[in-house]
């Protein structure tokens, strides 16, 4: 399972970075989205994978019986998803506004105020 996820994460990063190097701004945003998915999956995988071991303490016990899944990575991912959702929403509105204003979706045309 780790191997499959590692490949998935690798392809997400690779395609994200590839899209980020394009000049097309909407593709760039999709690249950012893929990159943040890659990061989330990376936390999930690095936190350790386990099956069918809910982090629940059985009734009457003080500590869990046997090994349990670590719930923290999922809490981290949830936070990260919410944050990247907000950032993406902002980025999409930003490119929409800039498309209306600048009439272009090409990174190269954003240079008029550069030296």
């Amino acid at each position, binding site marked *: 399972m780790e191997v499959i996820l590692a490949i998935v994460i690798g392809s997400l990063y690779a395609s994200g970075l590839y899209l980020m190097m394009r000049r097309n701004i909407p593709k760039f945003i999709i690249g950012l989205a893929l990159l943040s998915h*890659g990061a989330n999956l990376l936390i999930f995988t690095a936190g350790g994978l386990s099956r069918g071991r809910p982090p629940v303490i059985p009734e009457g016990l003080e500590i869990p019986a046997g090994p349990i899944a670590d719930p923290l990575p999922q809490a981290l991912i949830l936070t990260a998803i919410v944050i990247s959702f907000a950032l993406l929403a*902002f980025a999409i509105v930003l490119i929409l506004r800039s498309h209306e204003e600048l009439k272009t979706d090409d990174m190269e045309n954003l240079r008029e105020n550069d030296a």
Partner: protein
Amino acid sequence: MNLLLSIPVALPLACALLTLFGRRNIPFQRAVTIAGSVLNLLLALLLFRVIRSDGILALQIGNWPAPYGITFVADLFSAVMLIMSGLMATSVAIYSIVMIDEARERFHYHVFFNVLIMGVNGAFLTGDLFNLYVWFETMLMASFVLLSLGGERPQLQGAIKYVAMNFLSSALFLAGVGIIYGITGTLNMADLAVVVRQSDHPGIISIASVLFLIAFGIKSAAFPLFFWLPASYHTPPSPVSAIFAGLLTKVGVYALIRVFTLIFMPETEITQLVILVMAGFTMVTGVLGAAAQMEMRRLLSFHIVSQIGYMIMGLGMYTAASLGGAVLYIVHNIIAKTNLFFVAGVVAHKTGTNDLKKLGGIYKRSPILAVLFLISAMALAGLPPLSGFFAKLSLVIPGLSNGHYVVTATAIAVGLLTLFSMTKIWNEVFWKPAPGDQSTSDAALSWTKQEKICLLGPVVLLAACSVVIGLAGGSVYELVTDIGAQLKSADAYIQAVLPNGGRVP
């Protein structure tokens, strides 16, 4: 007493909410922002006094003992940075009254300003790696909005680059956090410091540390990923540029210094070399980029990059003295750089342009503004007796005594080039006769009473800070030496967060 630590975050949050509900009442919004910022500054000064006398403070949020809960920690470095954030917030809030138009104020300029300060303060205080990520995002979100608020063409162009690079750096930071958690099973920085020092997988920890180096390197605009900064910082209204120039990149440097002194220690030759090479190139590319510019705020933006190099150089040498020097450099640079952006904003406000070719004769029209510019410019270039001289000196001395001759020579040469850049602004904007019609352009600048207080007031305040830091060089140097020692040996920090020496089994 420890609850004091939550107020630098809670206060701006309260101000943000108040200004959100007072949307239609602009004088109310301004009053809340200024009052909140002043209170923040006073509180930071109080916090600094407490920490200076009693040592590092730690607050376990919700009373969950570290390393299980989220911890807020304030050592001397955090306290000094909080004072800086309070000082910048106060001066920018006053400056904004004149320089931000009412349309922006109606569309929540004050709300996002307060959220930005909350994010910055949170990043300075947190003792948890993931929490640091969250504060960074809070700060970034507010900065995105402030940068694009108003939606002018150049703003949108700058904002796309700024958003893109910061998004990328956040993704890398998050990946680093994930890997670190996977290896060590903890995110509390003090606990990480203990675990990493005993870890038997140094290789993979180094890989994670590289992710942090790149992520914070982007945020602090270090070589080679600095290009987003000069492309965006000159586009928003000048109070926004000023607070970005002063504070935001320094939060990146703060995180870099915090993580690389507490968790990963650049003790091997190769990591020191990597950081020093990065520092050298950052200095040189920034200052050379500035030499080609003919627009005041763009020129100053390139100098932000160049100055970041000095701070990273202090980290790269990794001695108590050099870390102290880096801290002094951050303090000096926040003050001087914000003030230069203030002056650039005033010049643009009064003349309608920041183009060096179109400007001229400001010295004749307003000698006071010229003198105030000169103080900050010479402080930035490192002329005695101003703050920049001691800041540079405290980096050059450890550089020479530890045999880092190349980077030290670079630092001194870049200092000279900075002086060249500053004299260029001085000649073009203040000294040379104004181009065009002499009769209209030689009239003295007229200031309304409000402009005198809100534009010149903050500039005078910050210029005075530069002079005072310079004149009180001895005691400031003593303070930063203590900060450097505290950063170099993480023991006091770990002891404050984990009084029982770590986790309960």
